[in-house]
């Protein structure tokens, strides 16, 4: 050190003391392999997710917002004064929920979400509540009155005997009534009962808004396994394979052999007497039932050629067997004017009236037409893509593939398709959802989907 200092002074060069010396910059240039390897080994390793990370369950909603059915209050009443209320949510929007939602149903302007939890709150509702289809939602401002529009998923109090043991299996919504299915305490119905669709006697001039009445139905031949709401009627499917119906019957949708209203759930006869039914479906005024042997039966409205393959009449009030030679049927779904079925091989067939999914030229057909699987992503490169589920809204259809992709088509009423565009879609179109879609519920002008995240 001293020698260096002496040397510096001898040469006449003034050097700054060691502490203040600035290092000379190293020349930049393409890094050699050795430099790269050293820099790599010196870096810290970050861990974002561990080996046992589970996939998260999410709920996505899209469609018409003003009714509050999407459950996001800032769409209807924005938090900031300068923002305008959003009329339509054209693409999937994430809805935060407290629990994992196992079943969802979209009615005409309202939505029900339910979870299989053992907590006290098992069902949440949002949207229109003018007929108490979401139960009684007590208003904070006035404790005697209820809300007409519910903007956020609000818990629905159910009169359960064992609230911490019973689990809610499924929910279903119609035009102004809703059904909640539990595993041990029967079916709870609420909402409009002017046609007996809630399963209780019709009371003249009853006011349905702000009503606390939730009816419980228990008298069936065995446990109810599936509940389905049509527009103004209700269908119940029991474990033994029988189907019960109540509600409006002017189009024969109750299938009981007459065109009057029924206020007590009654068993259906006709072609399904004695047949083990594994699935029922309805949304408008037409109903379809699938048996365990792959046959499909239909009854109800046939003005749009839904049942024209067996009869010329426009209303069918007894379940009729539909002789389609398309293979064993696994699942069926009914819309307002069109029907869709899924066969065991994974093929999708549509018939009825409206935008059926085979281009703008096919408007109506009485015989089921197959939708080519290449529209669902099937190709020589991906030969094992199959449609796993089919769902129907009032004038739109949805199909879920085994890869978790959601395809929609039909009339794009107020943005309900979720494609991001406002135009009608004449053939199946993918909806980009950030996750694997497990189930979807279609309504008139909005849709709700249950999604699992990717990783």
């Amino acid at each position, binding site marked *: 050190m001293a020698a260096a200092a002496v040397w510096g002074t001898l040469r006449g060069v003034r050097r700054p003391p060691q502490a203040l010396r600035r290092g000379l910059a190293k020349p930049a240039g393409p890094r050699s392999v050795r430099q790269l390897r050293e820099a790599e080994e010196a870096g810290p390793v970050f*861990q974002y*997710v561990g080996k046992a990370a589970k996939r998260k369950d999410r709920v996505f909603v899209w469609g018409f917002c003003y009714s509050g059915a999407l459950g996001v209050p800032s769409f209807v009443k924005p938090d900031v004064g300068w923002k305008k209320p959003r009329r339509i949510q054209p693409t999937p929007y994430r809805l935060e929920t407290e629990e994992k939602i196992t079943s969802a149903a979209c009615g005409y302007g309202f939505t029900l979400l339910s979870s299989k939890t053992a907590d006290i709150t098992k069902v949440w509702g949002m949207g229109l509540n003018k007929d108490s289809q979401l139960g009684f939602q007590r208003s904070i401002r006035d404790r005697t009155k209820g809300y007409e529009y519910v903007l956020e998923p609000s818990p629905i109090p159910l009169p359960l005997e064992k609230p911490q043991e019973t689990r809610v299996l499924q929910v279903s919504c119609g035009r102004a009534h809703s059904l909640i299915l539990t595993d041990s305490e029967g079916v709870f119905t609420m909402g409009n009962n002017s046609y007996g669709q809630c399963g209780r006697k019709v009371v003249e001039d009853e006011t349905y808004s702000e009503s606390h009445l939730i009816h419980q139905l228990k008298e069936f031949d065995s446990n109810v396994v599936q509940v389905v709401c049509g527009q103004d009627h209700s269908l119940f499917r029991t474990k033994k394979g029988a189907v019960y119906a109540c509600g409006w019957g002017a189009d024969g949708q109750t299938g009981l052999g007459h065109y009057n209203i029924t206020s007590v759930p009654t068993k259906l006869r006709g072609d399904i007497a004695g047949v083990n039914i594994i699935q029922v479906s309805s949304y408008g005024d037409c109903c379809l039932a699938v048996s365990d042997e792959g046959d499909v039966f239909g009854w109800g409205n046939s003005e749009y050629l839904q049942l024209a393959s067996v009869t010329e009449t426009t209303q069918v009030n007894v379940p009729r067997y539909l002789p389609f030679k398309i293979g064993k049927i696994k699942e069926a779904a009914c819309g307002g004017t069109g029907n869709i079925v899924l066969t065991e091989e994974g093929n999708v067939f549509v018939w009825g009236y409206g935008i059926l999914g*085979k281009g703008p030229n096919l408007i109506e057909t009485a015989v089921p037409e197959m939708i080519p699987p290449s529209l669902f*992503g099937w190709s020589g*490169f991906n030969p094992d893509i199959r449609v796993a589920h089919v769902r129907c809204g009032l004038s739109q259809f949805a199909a879920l593939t085994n890869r*978790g992709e959601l395809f929609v088509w039909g009339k794009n009423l107020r943005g309900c398709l979720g494609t991001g565009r406002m135009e009608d*879609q004449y053939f199946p179109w*993918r909806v980009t959802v950030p996750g*694997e879609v497990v189930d979807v519920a279609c309504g008139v002008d909005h849709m709700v989907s249950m999604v699992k995240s*990717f990783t």
Partner: protein
Amino acid sequence: LNAAPGRAPRQHVRFLPAPGDDGATGLVAARVPVLADHPLVRGPRFRRLKMGAGHRLDVKASGVFVLGIGHGNKLLTDLYNCHLTKVYTVGGLFGKATDDFSDMGKLVEKTTFDHITREKLERILAVIQGTNHKALLMHSNIDMKTQEAYELAVKGLIRPMGKSPPIITAIRCLQFTLPEFQLEVHCLHETQQYLRKIVHEIGLELKSSAVCTQVRRIRDGVFTLDDALPRTQWNLQSIQNAISDCQLKVKTELEKTLG
């Protein structure tokens, strides 16, 4: 090329003086080669060759690279307008993220990757394929409400026939041994750096990070690896053979697509 036997020289008729029988000079017609066609006068036949390049292949990538010679350059523009898909094998490595998405870049981050399984990767690839398929239909500029759009969509023939952002038509996983993996990508209008970016984004989606180790083009429209000439075969004979083999393929493809 210049050493190969060239065209035969043109012949023309000239009247040459020849000795007559009586001592008077007469003219005799004779067919002689034109002096201007003589190789020593004309010089070598080929001094320059016009060469054109097909779709770009950058320095860090390898694979099939299409070139056109002379009159073949006109076919190059036609092939470009066909908008055919190209196929790449892309190799990736989990656990690292670099600034230029390849393993020769400056390290940005290191992450763990033991939670990644083949099933998760395939799920991400399915979603990439789905969104790109949607982009394919949207950028093809066809009105979705027409019957012909429906028919083309059923056959799978909808393709953007003009400028469009890079679109991946098909992607699948060929090999998966942690930390390395290999993908086969069919794409349109892409650059190799875009493919490296896709590898990086796959790493991000899987909550880890990935860099691209290899990009190799194995197919460019009608030309596959079998038609391509490796470095050892860059001689006149193999080039001529390759041109004659591909001629028919190129012609049928152009007729099919451009009509």
